[in-house]
């Protein structure tokens, strides 16, 4: 029994090692899928963040804006990701954008409430004293409220990044690459479990490492936060 299990692990690892990369063909193997996965996920997260920040700041500044914007993005979140990928195909074809646009939207949906809540939880006495010292509204938002909101924003970023990394695998369903491709084409189609396991392990590892990097970033960016 134990010997069987050991055999199985050895087989999976061996498959992973031999298929890590193919010196003759840089397009084949696990490594190119992994870098593809990282590219799609990280670009989506960055673009999502780049949109969520100004939209969140605007929503915090002009309060009536927030409810309709939040409803709008929440509705988008309800659309199954696979459907969005297919909807994008006619416009962007099999380019990265077919994956990145919907994934950025999902990141935005998760991040936006964090940005707004983060800005709103800035204590009133901090805001008041900034006003009293002669910060104008814009400077106050950029120099005081946003930095104070960073821990809440990073908390959102951690959730969004894990969600995005796992959703890139769905993008593989429509043939957009990533580790999902390994699971799909090598695993399911050939009824072979090693690629499925390796694909899952690599995806989880990537999510884990990304999360660790974000925790590290939080430590570096907010040395002032209570622990």
């Amino acid at each position, binding site marked *: 029994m134990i010997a069987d299990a050991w055999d199985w692990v050895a087989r999976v690892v061996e498959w992973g090692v031999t298929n890590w990369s193919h010196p003759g063909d840089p397009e084949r193997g696990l490594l190119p899928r992994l870098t593809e996965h990282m590219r799609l996920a990280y670009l989506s997260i960055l673009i999502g963040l780049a949109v969520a920040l100004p939209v969140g700041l605007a929503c915090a500044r002009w309060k009536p804006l927030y409810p309709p914007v939040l409803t709008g993005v929440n509705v988008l979140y309800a659309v199954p990701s696979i459907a969005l990928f297919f909807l994008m195909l006619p416009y962007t074809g099999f380019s990265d954008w077919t994956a990145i646009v919907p994934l950025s939207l999902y990141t935005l949906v998760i991040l936006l409430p964090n940005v707004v809540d983060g800005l709103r939880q800035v204590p009133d*006495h901090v805001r008041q*004293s*900034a*006003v009293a*010292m*002669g910060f*104008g509204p814009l400077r106050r938002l950029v120099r005081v409220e946003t930095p104070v909101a960073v821990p809440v924003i990073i908390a959102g970023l951690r959730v969004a990044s894990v969600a995005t990394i796992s959703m890139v695998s769905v993008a593989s369903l429509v043939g957009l690459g990533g580790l999902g491709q390994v699971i799909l084409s090598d695993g399911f189609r050939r009824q072979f479990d090693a690629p499925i396991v390796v694909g899952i392990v690599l995806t989880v590892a990537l999510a884990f490492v990304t999360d660790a990097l974000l925790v590290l970033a939080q430590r570096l960016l907010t040395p*002032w*936060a*209570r622990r």
Partner: protein
Amino acid sequence: MITFEGAAKLYPDGTVAVDHLDMTVETGQTTVFVGPSGSGKTTSLRMINRMVEPTGGAVLIDGEDVRQRDPAVLRRSIGYVIQQAGLFPHRTVRDNIATVPLLLGWRRARARARAEELMELVGLEPSQARRYPHQLSGGQQQRVGVARALAADPPILLMDEPFSAVDPVVRASLQDELLRLQRELHKTIVFVTHDIDEAVRLGDRIAVFRPGGTLAQYDSPERLLAEPSDSFVESFVGYDRGVRRLSFFPASGLSPRQDVVFDEGTSAGAAADALGGEPWALVVTGDRMPLGWASATRLAGADTPLGALELVPYGHTFAVDTDSLRAALDAAVLSPAGRAVGVDADGRVVGVVSQDDLGTALWSVTE
């Protein structure tokens, strides 16, 4: 000089926060706003730096309507301290203090040097410069708040209940510091508090606000306690205002008695004879440090030197040259002998004041 000219604030929901306020805050003095909750103290204070715009009348600084000034620029010339200090959690103590200088465009090195100078001024350790606000106690945070407000050396300082969130001991030391700072700096300070004792302690002038945002009385602390203008002010300053008012009269006006003070070497019998009808003798050392009380009945039978007797503790003393009548009265009330021991700056006994003597003195000052 800050002038309120019929300043009023009517909120859109119909609340009259301040109703036609006419008053002048003198330059270089500490003016305290006191009054019950909701009487418009904060609102009035914030009219000065335009955090609240009056809906009627005007507020002038040195004759110029504050509405002529750009709010952000105006505020950089007015220090502001609030109850929870309002420190920026993401900035170190030093950078918090340097905030306004940096806004004014000072170079970073100069702003930081200035911050360090201010830390010393308000009694913070240099080692605290790189701490974050949450690593400080409430009292230390308030000190940082005061230092930050003073950083760009503004002529005006607005303080809204700055010391009300700290314990009484820390509050008293912060009040002492503020008095010391003010003796050095001569800022125009407007200080809001609920606490009439704090107002009397810090204020050169006190403005008592009434619910509805009107001024009930605007006077010096002495006059406010001596002559409250009406029953509202009287109840607000407290019915023990008579005792409180004694803080304004120096104890040096008393004439402490020497004839009931005896050296520890004196024999009990001699002391008993010298006491006449007095019930208590104060025993002191050779260099006149107090030891304690001996009662006349105790002396009568004894034949030892006074120092060998078991003495009643002398309680706490008052400094004849620097304390007030209030401190002398307090010492007399708390003394087991009903008499207060007056000492000089070195703690040596000057003499003894009985409650009767005090009564006469109080009568003459408060007639």
